[in-house]
């Protein structure tokens, strides 16, 4: 009797654990500008798997040699993916669950070291290129992927420009 009960309880516990594994990563908190862009600087699957390798390579090229291409730059990642504040105006930092990087890193249990030194949200005041202002000569998405960026509707453009021009 006891052994049957024990095995049933054991089975329930296993199923319980497995159910926990079923839950996928929470949806990432994308900044408005990013939601409109068709593709990241690399294909999405590639960037999900290898972003750390791209960043590591780029960081050494930048610090040691002064190569400052925007494609794999951490500052550009943040510029596009992170909104500086929430809707209520409070700042978003990387320790918060709703920061773009934290959404997935918390789920995967991987510590984030970048932002002990690097800015974890875009600087809006001194940054004319914040979230790739349309027509900006510096932006990556709008100069290298013009055809993809052109899918913005008139309403989107209006919303974005209203948000950027202060």
């Amino acid at each position, binding site marked *: 009797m006891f052994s049957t009960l024990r095995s049933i309880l054991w089975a329930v516990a296993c199923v319980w654990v497995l159910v926990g594994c079923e839950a996928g990563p929470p949806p990432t908190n994308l900044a408005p500008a990013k939601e409109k862009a068709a593709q990241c600087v690399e294909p999405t699957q590639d960037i999900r798997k290898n972003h750390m390798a791209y960043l590591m390579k780029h*960081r*050494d*090229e930048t*610090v*040691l*040699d*002064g*190569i*400052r*291409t*925007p494609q794999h730059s951490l*500052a550009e990642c*943040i510029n596009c993916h992170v909104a500086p504040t929430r809707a209520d105006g409070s*700042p978003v*930092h990387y320790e918060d669950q709703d920061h773009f990087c934290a959404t997935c890193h918390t789920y995967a249990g991987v510590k984030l070291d970048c932002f*002990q*030194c*690097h*800015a974890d*949200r*875009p*600087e809006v005041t001194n*940054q004319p290129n914040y979230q790739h202002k349309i027509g900006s000569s510096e932006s990556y998405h709008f100069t290298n992927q013009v055809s993809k960026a052109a899918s913005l509707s008139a309403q989107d453009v209006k919303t974005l420009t209203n948000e950027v021009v202060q």
Partner: protein
Amino acid sequence: MSTNQVNEYRRRFMAGLGLVTGATLASNFVLRSTEAAELVSRPDNEPASSAKRWGMLIDVNRLTEGGAAMVEACKKEHGWGNDPQSSAEQQPQWMRVVKVTDKTTQHSFQLPVMCQHCANPPCVDVCPTGASMKRADGIVYVNKHICIGCRYCMMACPYKARSFVHEPLKDQKVHSPRGMGTVESCNMCVHRIDKGQLPACVEAAPEAVIFGDLNDPESRISQAMKALGGKQIRADLGLNTGVRYLNI
């Protein structure tokens, strides 16, 4: 005294006057024409080249309050100097104004002191991890990715140019990452130089500072140093600094 001798004295005196006037005019001409025109932004996929060596020449007489405006511009550009939990002694200091007084004459002057961007930097010699580095174009700075915060470089630097960050920081400048446990110092605004802009402190004192390429004999800074000289602080150490001073 014969007439000939008097004429000789007069000639020498007038020649001397001429030299002084010439030097003053040259100083005006050279220093007034400081502009960013010489700086060309390197394509962003091209590494820094050892064909150039960046340096600056600071005329101490033309600075107000020993270059306090330069220090302020540096603070603003890199966001140092106001770390909330650090004491005054712990605050990072990328650049400071130093007052020097000659004890016998009481003559004193002030000068801004920051990383002197030595050609033979002692901080690079002592670094156990290779984090303290000199870039190909002569700019000396810390690669904070591999800095372990041992602070040997701070002790090795004869100019007291390096500081240590003692506390966790938030909302750093995008172009100037700073973080706890790493050493930091003036990096000659390397992010601005790469874009073809002048360092922030040079922009804050355009009348007093020339920035340019020390390797190019035709550059404004080389011409100015040829005409007027350019002293190193602690020249006896033989470090061949990239930052030079006039009128010290």
